């Protein structure tokens, strides 16, 4: 993360704990990143290739595009974006924290159940939104 990006240490700790929790509890997860809305990584699991910063940036773009598509099509605020690829899924969820807009990116293999990934992603998003 850039030295010029400041995240409340308690919020960062919370994010790290949720990454650890989901990675250990949800079957089939390949990686997880929590980032600022503008794509700076806050917490992440180890990923193949060490590309967490790029995933953070990409997830923020995906989240913002989901948001604007929801608004343009009069469907309302985007709740999540789910990408299904040949070998798994990427779920991107926004976190509406009072001081810092965040996004959650969860990568899962085909072994994972998409609904379960989204369920735990939402749980994480709600918990972080309410955290101090």
């Amino acid at each position, binding site marked *: 993360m850039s030295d010029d*990006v400041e995240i409340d240490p308690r919020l960062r700790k919370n994010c790290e704990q949720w990454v650890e929790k989901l990675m250990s509890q949800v079957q089939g997860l390949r990686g997880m990143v929590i980032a600022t809305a*503008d794509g700076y990584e806050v917490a992440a699991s180890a990923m193949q290739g060490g590309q967490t910063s*790029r995933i953070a940036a990409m997830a923020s773009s995906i989240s913002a595009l989901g948001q604007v598509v929801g608004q343009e099509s009069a469907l309302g605020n985007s709740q999540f974006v789910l990408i299904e690829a040949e070998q798994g899924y990427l779920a991107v969820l926004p976190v509406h924290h009072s001081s810092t807009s965040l996004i959650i990116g969860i990568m899962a293999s085909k072994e994972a159940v998409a609904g379960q990934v989204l369920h735990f992603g939402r749980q994480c998003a709600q918990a972080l939104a309410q955290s101090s």
Partner: protein
Amino acid sequence: MREHKILITGTMGAGKTTAIAAISDTPPISTDVANSDRSVNKLTTTVGLDYGELSLPNGEKLRLYGTPGQERFSFMWTILAEGALGVVILIDNSRPDPLADLLVYIKGLEQLMREAGCVVAVGRTETHPEPSLDDFGQTLEQHGLMCPVVTVDVRQRDQVLSVLDLLLMQIEAKQ
């Protein structure tokens, strides 16, 4: 109706979102979010794309795509550059090293700059006259690129339109 895809890129704060908003026929689509980078005095930053449309007097339409400015979103530059007939690179001359900024976009979009029409438009020159337009021209020339370099205030609709007129001339010349 003929439509042309135009890419507008440049550093964070150079005015891409502002430029598109200044000329779009309809309210532009924007993916601005809160800016976390304290080194840049800006409340928001583009993380996806800006999109606007401009109808030309001859009945043709320009589809204007603005990119995120920060280099970590360079994957979006590649995506958005696909099919673009021309690119405007907006430079903020008040930044510490505008020539280095230009090099970032030359590196990221060199193929597009060679094959498509290209204009480099430099802002904030009234308060920051250096580097000069010639300096930018020399940097381009060193990379074998021929693009006009002009000044622009992206808040002024007529100036942004002039940049696009120049770009369209470049596009026509390459066809």
